[in-house]
Protein backbone atom coordinates (compact mmCIF):
# COMPACT_ATOMS: atom_id res chain seq x y z
CA UNK A 1 0.00 0.00 0.00
CA UNK A 2 1.20 3.52 -0.79
CA UNK A 3 1.23 6.51 1.49
CA UNK A 4 0.55 9.99 0.13
CA UNK A 5 4.17 10.41 -0.85
CA UNK A 6 4.03 7.13 -2.71
CA UNK A 7 0.99 8.27 -4.67
CA UNK A 8 2.84 11.47 -5.56
CA UNK A 9 5.92 9.49 -6.64
CA UNK A 10 3.88 7.22 -8.86
CA UNK A 11 2.11 10.14 -10.55
CA UNK A 12 5.46 11.88 -11.04
CA UNK A 13 6.34 9.02 -13.42
CA UNK A 14 3.59 10.24 -15.73
CA UNK A 15 5.35 13.57 -16.29
CA UNK A 16 6.89 14.17 -19.71
CA UNK A 17 9.62 16.59 -20.65
CA UNK A 18 8.35 20.03 -21.63
CA UNK A 19 4.95 19.73 -20.01
CA UNK A 20 3.12 22.49 -18.23
CA UNK A 21 1.43 21.05 -15.16
CA UNK A 22 -1.21 22.26 -12.73
CA UNK A 23 -1.13 20.58 -9.33
CA UNK A 24 -4.08 20.82 -6.96
CA UNK A 25 -3.92 21.23 -3.22
CA UNK A 26 -3.05 18.20 -1.05
CA UNK A 27 -1.36 15.09 -2.47
CA UNK A 28 -0.87 16.66 -5.93
CA UNK A 29 1.33 19.40 -4.44
CA UNK A 30 3.80 16.73 -3.28
CA UNK A 31 4.45 15.64 -6.88
CA UNK A 32 6.77 18.61 -7.40
CA UNK A 33 9.23 16.92 -5.04
CA UNK A 34 9.60 13.79 -7.20
CA UNK A 35 10.19 14.96 -10.76
CA UNK A 36 12.18 12.25 -12.58
CA UNK A 37 15.73 13.08 -13.64
CA UNK A 38 16.04 14.54 -17.11
CA UNK A 39 12.45 15.72 -17.12
CA UNK A 40 11.78 19.43 -17.26
CA UNK A 41 8.29 20.60 -16.37
CA UNK A 42 6.85 23.95 -15.41
CA UNK A 43 4.20 24.35 -12.75
CA UNK A 44 1.27 26.66 -13.26
CA UNK A 45 -0.62 28.00 -10.28
CA UNK A 46 -4.05 29.32 -11.20
CA UNK A 47 -3.71 32.45 -9.07
CA UNK A 48 -1.28 33.71 -11.67
CA UNK A 49 2.21 32.26 -11.95
CA UNK A 50 4.00 29.97 -14.34
CA UNK A 51 7.34 28.60 -13.21
CA UNK A 52 6.44 28.19 -9.57
CA UNK A 53 9.44 27.22 -7.46
CA UNK A 54 9.86 25.64 -4.02
CA UNK A 55 8.92 27.28 -0.72
CA UNK A 56 11.15 30.24 0.19
CA UNK A 57 13.89 29.98 2.77
CA UNK A 58 12.81 31.15 6.19
CA UNK A 59 12.86 34.95 6.33
CA UNK A 60 12.53 35.26 2.57
CA UNK A 61 8.76 34.88 2.38
CA UNK A 62 7.01 37.44 0.19
CA UNK A 63 3.33 38.12 0.92
CA UNK A 64 2.93 39.00 -2.76
CA UNK A 65 4.11 35.61 -3.99
CA UNK A 66 1.78 32.74 -3.14
CA UNK A 67 0.31 29.68 -4.81
CA UNK A 68 -3.33 28.68 -5.19
CA UNK A 69 -3.19 27.11 -1.72
CA UNK A 70 -2.20 30.57 -0.37
CA UNK A 71 1.23 29.20 0.58
CA UNK A 72 4.31 31.36 0.22
CA UNK A 73 6.38 30.24 -2.78
CA UNK A 74 9.28 31.32 -4.96
CA UNK A 75 9.56 31.93 -8.70
CA UNK A 76 11.99 29.94 -10.84
CA UNK A 77 14.27 31.64 -13.31
CA UNK A 78 12.15 32.27 -16.41
CA UNK A 79 8.91 32.44 -14.45
CA UNK A 80 6.15 34.84 -15.38
CA UNK A 81 3.20 36.44 -13.65
CA UNK A 82 -0.26 37.12 -15.05
CA UNK A 83 -3.80 37.90 -13.99
CA UNK A 84 -6.58 35.41 -13.22
CA UNK A 85 -8.29 35.79 -16.59
CA UNK A 86 -5.06 34.96 -18.43
CA UNK A 87 -4.43 32.10 -16.03
CA UNK A 88 -7.74 30.50 -16.87
CA UNK A 89 -7.23 31.27 -20.55
CA UNK A 90 -4.25 28.89 -20.23
CA UNK A 91 -6.40 26.31 -18.49
CA UNK A 92 -9.55 26.60 -20.60
CA UNK A 93 -7.54 26.94 -23.79
CA UNK A 94 -5.83 23.61 -23.09
CA UNK A 95 -2.33 24.96 -22.94
CA UNK A 96 -1.62 22.82 -19.88
CA UNK A 97 -0.63 19.23 -20.55
CA UNK A 98 -1.45 17.68 -17.19
CA UNK A 99 -3.79 18.50 -14.33
CA UNK A 100 -3.60 16.54 -11.09
CA UNK A 101 -6.19 17.05 -8.40
CA UNK A 102 -7.72 15.39 -5.40
CA UNK A 103 -11.29 14.12 -5.15
CA UNK A 104 -13.88 13.05 -2.64
CA UNK A 105 -15.57 10.76 -5.17
CA UNK A 106 -14.98 9.56 -8.72
CA UNK A 107 -17.50 7.55 -10.70
CA UNK A 108 -16.65 4.82 -13.20
CA UNK A 109 -17.64 7.05 -16.13
CA UNK A 110 -15.18 9.75 -15.07
CA UNK A 111 -17.43 12.10 -13.10
CA UNK A 112 -15.72 13.78 -10.18
CA UNK A 113 -16.96 15.39 -6.96
CA UNK A 114 -14.59 17.38 -4.82
CA UNK A 115 -16.04 20.71 -3.82
CA UNK A 116 -19.05 20.44 -1.57
CA UNK A 117 -20.75 18.34 1.08
CA UNK A 118 -24.28 19.74 1.22
CA UNK A 119 -25.16 21.22 4.59
CA UNK A 120 -21.73 20.52 6.01
CA UNK A 121 -18.71 21.62 4.04
CA UNK A 122 -18.97 24.72 1.91
CA UNK A 123 -15.64 25.83 0.59
CA UNK A 124 -16.42 26.41 -3.06
CA UNK A 125 -15.00 24.95 -6.22
CA UNK A 126 -12.20 27.45 -6.71
CA UNK A 127 -10.61 26.61 -10.05
CA UNK A 128 -11.52 22.93 -10.00
CA UNK A 129 -14.53 23.14 -12.31
CA UNK A 130 -12.56 25.07 -14.92
CA UNK A 131 -9.70 22.61 -14.65
CA UNK A 132 -11.74 19.43 -15.01
CA UNK A 133 -13.96 20.80 -17.78
CA UNK A 134 -10.98 21.95 -19.82
CA UNK A 135 -8.06 19.61 -19.36
CA UNK A 136 -7.53 16.73 -21.77
CA UNK A 137 -5.33 14.91 -19.31
CA UNK A 138 -6.61 14.74 -15.76
CA UNK A 139 -5.21 12.47 -13.09
CA UNK A 140 -6.97 12.15 -9.75
CA UNK A 141 -4.72 11.57 -6.75
CA UNK A 142 -6.55 10.27 -3.70
CA UNK A 143 -6.94 7.53 -1.14
CA UNK A 144 -9.00 4.61 -2.44
CA UNK A 145 -11.42 4.80 0.50
CA UNK A 146 -12.56 7.57 2.82
CA UNK A 147 -11.93 7.82 6.55
CA UNK A 148 -14.90 5.58 7.26
CA UNK A 149 -13.47 2.93 4.95
CA UNK A 150 -16.01 3.51 2.21
CA UNK A 151 -14.98 3.36 -1.44
CA UNK A 152 -14.37 6.66 -3.24
CA UNK A 153 -14.45 4.89 -6.64
CA UNK A 154 -18.17 4.65 -7.23
CA UNK A 155 -20.75 3.52 -9.73
CA UNK A 156 -22.17 7.03 -9.41
CA UNK A 157 -21.11 10.04 -7.38
CA UNK A 158 -23.36 10.91 -4.44
CA UNK A 159 -21.96 14.40 -3.82
CA UNK A 160 -22.53 17.44 -6.06
CA UNK A 161 -20.38 17.07 -9.16
CA UNK A 162 -17.37 19.13 -10.07
CA UNK A 163 -17.29 17.83 -13.64
CA UNK A 164 -18.70 15.07 -15.81
CA UNK A 165 -16.84 12.37 -17.75
CA UNK A 166 -13.53 14.09 -17.40
CA UNK A 167 -11.23 11.96 -15.24
CA UNK A 168 -8.90 9.79 -17.29
CA UNK A 169 -6.67 8.19 -14.67
CA UNK A 170 -6.71 7.62 -10.93
CA UNK A 171 -3.77 6.87 -8.68
CA UNK A 172 -4.69 5.76 -5.17
CA UNK A 173 -2.92 4.15 -2.24
CA UNK A 174 -4.02 0.78 -3.68
CA UNK A 175 -3.90 1.02 -7.46
CA UNK A 176 -3.50 2.80 -10.77
CA UNK A 177 -6.67 2.76 -12.85
CA UNK A 178 -7.75 4.23 -16.17
CA UNK A 179 -11.33 5.18 -16.80
CA UNK A 180 -12.49 3.47 -19.98
CA UNK A 181 -15.78 2.58 -21.59
CA UNK A 182 -17.34 0.28 -18.99
CA UNK A 183 -15.59 1.28 -15.82
CA UNK A 184 -12.32 1.49 -13.90
CA UNK A 185 -9.67 -0.49 -15.73
CA UNK A 186 -7.11 -1.77 -13.25
CA UNK A 187 -3.59 -1.16 -14.54
CA UNK A 188 -1.28 -1.62 -11.55
CA UNK A 189 -1.46 -2.77 -7.95
CA UNK A 190 0.35 -0.90 -5.18
CA UNK A 191 3.20 -2.92 -3.67
CA UNK A 192 1.82 -5.73 -1.55
CA UNK A 193 -1.80 -5.09 -2.45
CA UNK A 194 -3.86 -7.94 -3.85
CA UNK A 195 -6.50 -7.78 -6.52
CA UNK A 196 -9.00 -8.91 -3.93
CA UNK A 197 -8.23 -5.93 -1.74
CA UNK A 198 -8.72 -3.59 -4.68
CA UNK A 199 -12.00 -5.28 -5.61
CA UNK A 200 -13.23 -4.94 -2.04
CA UNK A 201 -12.36 -1.24 -1.94
CA UNK A 202 -13.94 -0.38 -5.32
CA UNK A 203 -17.68 0.14 -5.50
CA UNK A 204 -17.82 1.10 -9.17
CA UNK A 205 -17.40 -1.33 -12.06
CA UNK A 206 -13.87 -2.69 -12.09
CA UNK A 207 -12.33 -4.12 -15.24
CA UNK A 208 -9.55 -6.63 -14.67
CA UNK A 209 -7.92 -8.10 -17.75
CA UNK A 210 -4.86 -10.33 -17.75
CA UNK A 211 -1.97 -10.04 -15.35
CA UNK A 212 -2.02 -6.88 -13.21
CA UNK A 213 1.56 -5.91 -12.42
CA UNK A 214 2.72 -4.34 -9.21
CA UNK A 215 3.80 -0.71 -9.47
CA UNK A 216 7.47 0.01 -9.73
CA UNK A 217 8.39 3.06 -7.70
CA UNK A 218 11.96 4.22 -7.47
Amino acid at each position, binding site marked *: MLDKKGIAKRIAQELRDGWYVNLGIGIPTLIANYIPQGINVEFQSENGILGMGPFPFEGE*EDADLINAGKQTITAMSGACIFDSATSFAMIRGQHIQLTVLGAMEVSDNGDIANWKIPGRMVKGMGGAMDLVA*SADNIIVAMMHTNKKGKSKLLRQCTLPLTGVQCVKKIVTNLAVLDIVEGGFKLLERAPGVSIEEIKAATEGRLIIEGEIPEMVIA
Partner: protein
Amino acid sequence: MNKVVANAQEAIKGIEDNMTLMLGGFGLCGIPENCIAAMVDANITGLTCISNNAGVDDFGLGLLLQKRQIKKMISSYVGENDEFERQMLSGELEVDLIPQGSLAERCRAGGAGIPAFFTPAGFGTEVAAEKEVRYFNGKPHILETALTADFAIVKAWKGDPMGNLIYKGTARNFNPMMAMAGKITIAEVEELVAPGELDPNQVHTPGIFIQRIFQGAKYEKRIEQRTVRQKN
Protein backbone atom coordinates in the same frame (compact mmCIF):
# COMPACT_ATOMS: atom_id res chain seq x y z
CA MET B 1 -6.04 64.11 -15.62
CA ASN B 2 -5.65 63.90 -11.89
CA LYS B 3 -7.67 61.23 -10.12
CA VAL B 4 -5.87 61.41 -6.79
CA VAL B 5 -7.94 61.50 -3.61
CA ALA B 6 -6.52 61.98 -0.13
CA ASN B 7 -7.25 58.63 1.48
CA ALA B 8 -9.57 55.66 1.78
CA GLN B 9 -12.32 57.67 3.50
CA GLU B 10 -12.48 60.02 0.57
CA ALA B 11 -12.12 57.23 -1.96
CA ILE B 12 -15.15 55.30 -0.75
CA LYS B 13 -17.49 58.31 -0.84
CA GLY B 14 -20.63 57.34 -2.67
CA ILE B 15 -20.55 53.69 -1.62
CA GLU B 16 -23.96 53.20 -0.09
CA ASP B 17 -25.93 50.46 1.62
CA ASN B 18 -27.06 47.61 -0.67
CA MET B 19 -24.60 48.38 -3.43
CA THR B 20 -22.64 45.77 -5.37
CA LEU B 21 -18.87 45.88 -5.02
CA MET B 22 -15.98 44.06 -6.63
CA LEU B 23 -12.88 43.60 -4.50
CA GLY B 24 -9.57 42.41 -5.91
CA GLY B 25 -7.32 39.87 -4.26
CA PHE B 26 -6.73 36.14 -3.96
CA GLY B 27 -6.92 34.99 -0.36
CA LEU B 28 -5.29 37.86 1.53
CA CYS B 29 -2.90 38.59 -1.34
CA GLY B 30 -3.51 41.83 -3.19
CA ILE B 31 -6.58 42.94 -1.24
CA PRO B 32 -7.53 46.62 -0.80
CA GLU B 33 -6.82 46.74 2.92
CA ASN B 34 -7.33 50.46 3.36
CA CYS B 35 -10.72 50.61 1.66
CA ILE B 36 -11.97 47.55 3.53
CA ALA B 37 -11.02 49.19 6.84
CA ALA B 38 -12.73 52.42 5.79
CA MET B 39 -15.92 50.54 4.89
CA VAL B 40 -15.88 48.79 8.27
CA ASP B 41 -15.64 52.21 9.94
CA ALA B 42 -18.33 53.69 7.70
CA ASN B 43 -20.77 50.93 8.66
CA ILE B 44 -22.06 50.47 5.13
CA THR B 45 -24.39 47.46 5.14
CA GLY B 46 -26.37 45.17 2.85
CA LEU B 47 -23.40 44.85 0.50
CA THR B 48 -23.09 42.36 -2.31
CA CYS B 49 -19.39 41.59 -2.62
CA ILE B 50 -17.85 40.00 -5.69
CA SER B 51 -14.48 38.66 -4.60
CA ASN B 52 -12.69 35.39 -5.24
CA ASN B 53 -12.48 34.74 -1.48
CA ALA B 54 -14.07 36.09 1.66
CA GLY B 55 -10.96 36.79 3.71
CA VAL B 56 -10.24 35.08 7.03
CA ASP B 57 -12.10 35.53 10.29
CA ASP B 58 -10.19 38.61 11.36
CA PHE B 59 -8.80 40.07 8.13
CA GLY B 60 -9.82 41.05 4.66
CA LEU B 61 -13.52 40.74 3.90
CA GLY B 62 -13.83 38.76 7.14
CA LEU B 63 -13.87 42.12 8.91
CA LEU B 64 -17.02 43.15 7.03
CA LEU B 65 -18.57 39.72 7.60
CA GLN B 66 -18.00 39.96 11.35
CA LYS B 67 -20.01 43.18 11.45
CA ARG B 68 -22.74 41.68 9.21
CA GLN B 69 -22.18 44.34 6.57
CA ILE B 70 -22.34 41.80 3.75
CA LYS B 71 -25.67 40.49 2.49
CA LYS B 72 -24.33 38.37 -0.34
CA MET B 73 -20.99 37.00 -1.48
CA ILE B 74 -20.18 36.08 -5.07
CA SER B 75 -16.98 34.03 -4.84
CA SER B 76 -15.20 30.90 -5.98
CA TYR B 77 -13.56 29.69 -2.77
CA VAL B 78 -14.59 30.60 0.74
CA GLY B 79 -12.79 28.08 2.95
CA GLU B 80 -10.67 29.03 5.94
CA ASN B 81 -13.33 31.32 7.37
CA ASP B 82 -15.47 29.98 10.22
CA GLU B 83 -17.70 33.01 10.56
CA PHE B 84 -18.45 32.87 6.85
CA GLU B 85 -19.37 29.20 7.06
CA ARG B 86 -21.59 29.84 10.07
CA GLN B 87 -23.46 32.71 8.40
CA MET B 88 -23.83 30.75 5.18
CA LEU B 89 -25.08 27.51 6.73
CA SER B 90 -27.50 29.44 8.96
CA GLY B 91 -28.88 31.28 5.95
CA GLU B 92 -27.88 34.75 7.19
CA LEU B 93 -25.59 35.19 4.21
CA GLU B 94 -26.48 34.58 0.59
CA VAL B 95 -23.67 32.94 -1.33
CA ASP B 96 -23.23 32.47 -5.05
CA LEU B 97 -20.29 30.19 -5.79
CA ILE B 98 -18.77 30.46 -9.26
CA PRO B 99 -15.89 28.57 -10.90
CA GLN B 100 -12.78 30.70 -10.52
CA GLY B 101 -12.09 30.96 -14.23
CA SER B 102 -15.68 31.91 -14.97
CA LEU B 103 -15.54 34.53 -12.22
CA ALA B 104 -12.40 36.07 -13.73
CA GLU B 105 -13.81 35.96 -17.26
CA ARG B 106 -17.20 37.34 -16.22
CA CYS B 107 -15.51 40.35 -14.63
CA ARG B 108 -13.37 40.89 -17.71
CA ALA B 109 -16.47 40.54 -19.89
CA GLY B 110 -18.27 43.13 -17.77
CA GLY B 111 -15.48 45.59 -18.31
CA ALA B 112 -15.05 44.73 -21.99
CA GLY B 113 -18.66 45.11 -23.13
CA ILE B 114 -19.08 41.38 -23.78
CA PRO B 115 -22.50 40.62 -22.26
CA ALA B 116 -22.14 36.83 -22.36
CA PHE B 117 -19.82 34.02 -23.44
CA PHE B 118 -19.70 30.25 -23.52
CA THR B 119 -17.40 28.22 -21.27
CA PRO B 120 -17.11 24.49 -20.60
CA ALA B 121 -16.61 25.07 -16.86
CA GLY B 122 -19.46 23.80 -14.73
CA PHE B 123 -21.32 21.84 -17.39
CA GLY B 124 -23.28 19.01 -15.77
CA THR B 125 -22.96 20.56 -12.29
CA GLU B 126 -25.09 22.74 -10.01
CA VAL B 127 -23.43 25.75 -11.61
CA ALA B 128 -25.11 24.98 -14.93
CA ALA B 129 -28.61 24.96 -13.47
CA GLU B 130 -30.94 27.02 -15.66
CA LYS B 131 -28.08 28.07 -17.91
CA GLU B 132 -28.16 27.63 -21.66
CA VAL B 133 -26.10 24.68 -22.90
CA ARG B 134 -24.61 24.60 -26.37
CA TYR B 135 -22.17 22.24 -28.05
CA PHE B 136 -19.13 23.55 -29.89
CA ASN B 137 -16.82 21.02 -31.58
CA GLY B 138 -18.83 18.30 -29.89
CA LYS B 139 -18.12 19.60 -26.40
CA PRO B 140 -20.80 21.02 -24.09
CA HIS B 141 -20.52 24.62 -22.90
CA ILE B 142 -22.71 26.84 -20.76
CA LEU B 143 -23.55 30.48 -21.31
CA GLU B 144 -22.20 32.79 -18.61
CA THR B 145 -23.06 36.48 -18.36
CA ALA B 146 -20.94 39.51 -17.57
CA LEU B 147 -20.51 40.88 -14.05
CA THR B 148 -20.27 44.56 -13.24
CA ALA B 149 -20.31 46.50 -9.98
CA ASP B 150 -21.32 49.90 -8.65
CA PHE B 151 -17.79 50.21 -7.32
CA ALA B 152 -14.73 48.10 -7.98
CA ILE B 153 -11.92 48.40 -5.44
CA VAL B 154 -8.48 47.21 -6.41
CA LYS B 155 -5.03 47.19 -4.87
CA ALA B 156 -1.85 47.76 -6.86
CA TRP B 157 1.82 48.15 -6.12
CA LYS B 158 2.45 51.42 -7.94
CA GLY B 159 0.14 53.88 -9.57
CA ASP B 160 0.21 57.37 -11.08
CA PRO B 161 -2.31 60.24 -10.98
CA MET B 162 -3.84 59.13 -14.31
CA GLY B 163 -4.71 55.82 -12.68
CA ASN B 164 -2.15 53.69 -14.49
CA LEU B 165 -1.33 50.70 -12.30
CA ILE B 166 1.42 48.13 -11.87
CA TYR B 167 0.90 45.10 -9.67
CA LYS B 168 3.54 43.01 -7.93
CA GLY B 169 3.78 39.23 -8.12
CA THR B 170 0.66 37.17 -7.56
CA ALA B 171 -0.99 40.15 -5.88
CA ARG B 172 -2.15 40.91 -9.43
CA ASN B 173 -4.75 38.10 -9.63
CA PHE B 174 -8.31 39.48 -10.00
CA ASN B 175 -7.39 43.14 -9.71
CA PRO B 176 -6.96 43.93 -13.43
CA MET B 177 -10.32 42.48 -14.51
CA MET B 178 -12.23 44.01 -11.62
CA ALA B 179 -10.63 47.37 -12.36
CA MET B 180 -12.30 47.17 -15.78
CA ALA B 181 -15.74 46.25 -14.47
CA GLY B 182 -16.60 48.91 -11.91
CA LYS B 183 -18.91 51.79 -12.79
CA ILE B 184 -16.51 53.63 -10.52
CA THR B 185 -13.17 51.99 -9.81
CA ILE B 186 -11.01 52.91 -6.84
CA ALA B 187 -7.34 51.95 -6.81
CA GLU B 188 -5.30 51.95 -3.64
CA VAL B 189 -1.56 51.68 -4.19
CA GLU B 190 1.49 51.18 -2.06
CA GLU B 191 3.30 53.92 -3.90
CA LEU B 192 1.81 56.81 -5.85
CA VAL B 193 4.38 58.04 -8.34
CA ALA B 194 4.55 61.15 -10.54
CA PRO B 195 3.18 61.09 -14.12
CA GLY B 196 5.76 59.66 -16.48
CA GLU B 197 7.49 57.53 -13.85
CA LEU B 198 5.76 54.36 -14.97
CA ASP B 199 7.07 52.91 -18.23
CA PRO B 200 4.07 53.03 -20.64
CA ASN B 201 5.12 49.60 -21.89
CA GLN B 202 4.82 48.06 -18.44
CA VAL B 203 1.51 49.39 -17.21
CA HIS B 204 -0.76 46.49 -16.24
CA THR B 205 -4.01 48.44 -15.86
CA PRO B 206 -4.47 51.46 -18.15
CA GLY B 207 -5.64 54.54 -16.27
CA ILE B 208 -8.83 54.77 -18.30
CA PHE B 209 -10.35 52.09 -16.07
CA ILE B 210 -9.63 53.99 -12.83
CA GLN B 211 -11.65 56.91 -11.46
CA ARG B 212 -10.02 57.43 -8.04
CA ILE B 213 -6.57 56.61 -6.74
CA PHE B 214 -4.73 57.07 -3.44
CA GLN B 215 -1.63 55.89 -1.67
CA GLY B 216 -2.69 53.53 1.11
CA ALA B 217 -1.21 53.53 4.59
CA LYS B 218 0.29 50.80 6.75
CA TYR B 219 -0.15 47.74 4.59
CA GLU B 220 -0.16 44.66 6.79
CA LYS B 221 -0.07 42.22 3.84
CA ARG B 222 -0.81 39.29 6.11
CA ILE B 223 0.44 35.89 4.97
CA GLU B 224 -2.23 33.21 5.12
CA GLN B 225 -0.02 30.09 4.88
CA ARG B 226 3.57 30.79 5.78
CA THR B 227 5.45 27.89 4.21
CA VAL B 228 9.24 27.79 4.17
CA ARG B 229 12.06 25.36 3.60
CA GLN B 230 15.21 25.05 5.65
CA LYS B 231 18.62 26.09 4.44
CA ASN B 232 20.86 23.05 4.60
